[in-house]
């Protein structure tokens, strides 16, 4: 196996194998990997780079799980623990609408006491502010938890939430599927198999979702390839994933103690680029600037990335873990960032319909 044999395959539009993906991770030829990823992306998306205008609402940080990589979760009696009531959620949704948001992104902790009705009401509240707002809410981990609270099957839970206004699902909680790593990172969280099974139900229920991968902690390159393989296989069956989002681990303030201070710039760009090459059945690869920083996120547009997430307002989870990026970027700032990379900014909605070209 050589870089040029892999390049030949990519040029021919063929799928690369797990071993080939691993070879790329172990290669130091950053520019060659970037060129292949840029080629794959150009075929799919041309010059266009997506962003959307959204607002994150993290409705609670109280969580029954204690994941080692998380600096956000609290117990109910810990200082800084909070839960928004429906009025606070409504106020945030109104504010977002006034700022031109098309999407409300809701994820939170696994709260020990909130009843299932709260989640339905939360969705109805946001849709009540404007039926035009798309609500992208609840990771597969939360769906599993809500089903247990409600005493419902996963399909029934999804039907209830969809009826209350759920538009699609974010891709969080995937972390790394490998069981050995997962048992150290987040032993109480649902397994990788369960995450994938829930996403399959989500897609069967006619809902789209995203997919993430948390990297740069205890995993090895083989775990990243394994993670992407399982996503590629599920995507072959359902086609329900809209975008893949690698998330760079932010070690500050988290219980997980590592020697390194976080991922390196080369690792970030390689991971994004290799995911673009390997996940040939995903339309979009997103650089989450909140965790990568604006500079690397912008540079990643030359490394196969075609989506820069939204003009996030009030992000808490990454920032609690020490992310040094600003809390929000305006539409103008994101447009300027894309243009300065020589690309065409396109505002999209949550389902990747194009709203406006800049």
């Amino acid at each position: 196996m050589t870089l040029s044999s892999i390049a030949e395959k990519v040029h021919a539009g063929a799928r690369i194998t797990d071993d080939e993906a691993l070879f790329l991770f172990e290669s130091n030829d950053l520019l060659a990997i970037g060129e292949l990823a840029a080629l794959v992306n150009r075929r799919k998306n041309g010059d266009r780079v997506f962003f959307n205008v959204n607002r994150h609402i993290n409705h609670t940080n109280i969580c029954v799980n204690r994941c080692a990589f998380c600096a956000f979760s609290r117990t109910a009696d810990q200082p800084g623990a909070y839960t928004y009531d429906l009025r606070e959620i409504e106020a945030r949704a109104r504010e977002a609408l006034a700022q031109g948001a098309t999407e409300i992104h809701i994820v939170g902790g696994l709260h020990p006491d909130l009843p299932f009705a709260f989640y339905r009401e939360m969705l109805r509240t946001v849709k009540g502010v404007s039926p035009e707002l798309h609500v992208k809410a609840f990771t597969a981990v939360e769906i599993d938890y809500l089903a247990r609270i409600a005493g419902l099957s996963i399909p029934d839970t999804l039907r209830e939430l969809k009826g209350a206004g759920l538009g699609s699902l974010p891709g969080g909680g995937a972390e790394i599927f490998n069981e050995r790593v997962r048992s150290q990172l987040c032993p109480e969280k649902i397994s990788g198999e369960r995450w994938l099974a829930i996403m399959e139900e989500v897609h069967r229920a006619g809902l789209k979702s995203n997919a993430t991968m948390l990297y740069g902690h205890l995993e090895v390159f083989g775990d990243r390839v394994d993670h992407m393989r399982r996503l590629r296989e599920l995507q072959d069956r359902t086609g329900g994933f809209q975008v893949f989002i690698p998330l760079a681990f932010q070690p500050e303030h988290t219980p997980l103690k590592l020697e390194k201070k976080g991922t390196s710039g080369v690792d970030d760009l390689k991971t994004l680029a290799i995911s673009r090459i390997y996940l040939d059945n995903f339309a979009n690869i997103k650089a989450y600037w909140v965790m990568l920083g604006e500079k690397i996120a912008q540079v990643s547009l030359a490394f196969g990335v075609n989506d820069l997430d939204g003009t996030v307002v009030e992000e808490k989870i990454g920032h609690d873990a020490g992310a040094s990026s600003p809390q929000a970027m305006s539409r103008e700032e994101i447009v300027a960032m894309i243009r300065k990379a020589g690309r065409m900014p396109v505002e999209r909605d949550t389902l990747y319909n194009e709203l406006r070209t800049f």
Partner: protein
Amino acid sequence: MLAGIAEKVRSGGRIDRAEAHWLLTEGDLLAVGRLADGIRRRLHPDNLVTFVVDRNVNYTNVCESRCRFCAFYRDQDAADAYLLEAEEIYRKIEELVAVGGTQLLMQGGLHPALGIEWFERLFREIKRRFPQVQNHSLSPAEITQIARVSGLAVPETVRRLHKAGLDSIPGGGAEILVDRVRQEISPKKIGWEGWAVVMREAARLGMPTTATMMFGSTETPADIVEHLFRVRELQADGGSFTAFIPWTYQPGNTELGGKTATGAEYLKVLALSRIVIDNIPNLQASWVTQGAKMAQVALFFGANDLGGTMLEENVVAAAGCTFRMTKEEMVELIRGAGFRAAQRSTLYRIVGEF
């Protein structure tokens, strides 16, 4: 256009201003990076990335120049204006030596009252106490100021400072070597030819120098290209530049304000620097303005050196940009990109490999 330029670069030819302008404004980032990386690997085939262990000592923040892009300067009567005592400076150098540092980078404002005797006395004593430390200090603007305050010609000033112990001169204050831009951002600072006069004199005396560029303020792409060609031409004309160091304007707390250059812009200018200035051996990545992640990526866009570990840095920090790096982090960063890491002297001799 790209194919023609690539052919020229690969065969070791030199591109012209129009081609450089095209690369900067129209060229694909990875394509420009690829050309720069080719030159970098030709000039440095040993897969080595170097850094120096150094300390900035900013002896005064009193400055008559009052550049609009600067957040560090103070008027002499300001409450937080300072001039370091000689003993304080020696103490800082002792700390540098204690951590295995080899380079002292002393820089300060254009002080209205510090004549050449002040510097001569200081440099002689530094040489006497710390003969192992390379005194890599001042900048053309400071040297011109010392000449003015002392009523001396610039060449005589450079000669006397050299004789007193100034080993080499860093290329700060170059900003953009185009006088229209200098008028906008630093109207009271020497013009580009004043900068060149000092560097030519230093080269004539056999003193090594470096050249910098601060971009991302009010210059146009054509100004950046002009800067790169002027540096290349100075070097071709007997210059003694060991390294070129582009970095980005930091707008925090400055009169000029505005935004800093983006990551993609930085990498493209860096790569273009490598392509145009093929007669200066080393190109430094600026982790101080770009952060560790971008500095690592810069190693694939023409940079072969990470500059100094900077035990102390005050000027960029005053503009709200406060990245820090230890020697260990630098080694880790270099290895993580697949290169061998080495500590070097100011003149790029290898001090130790990791």
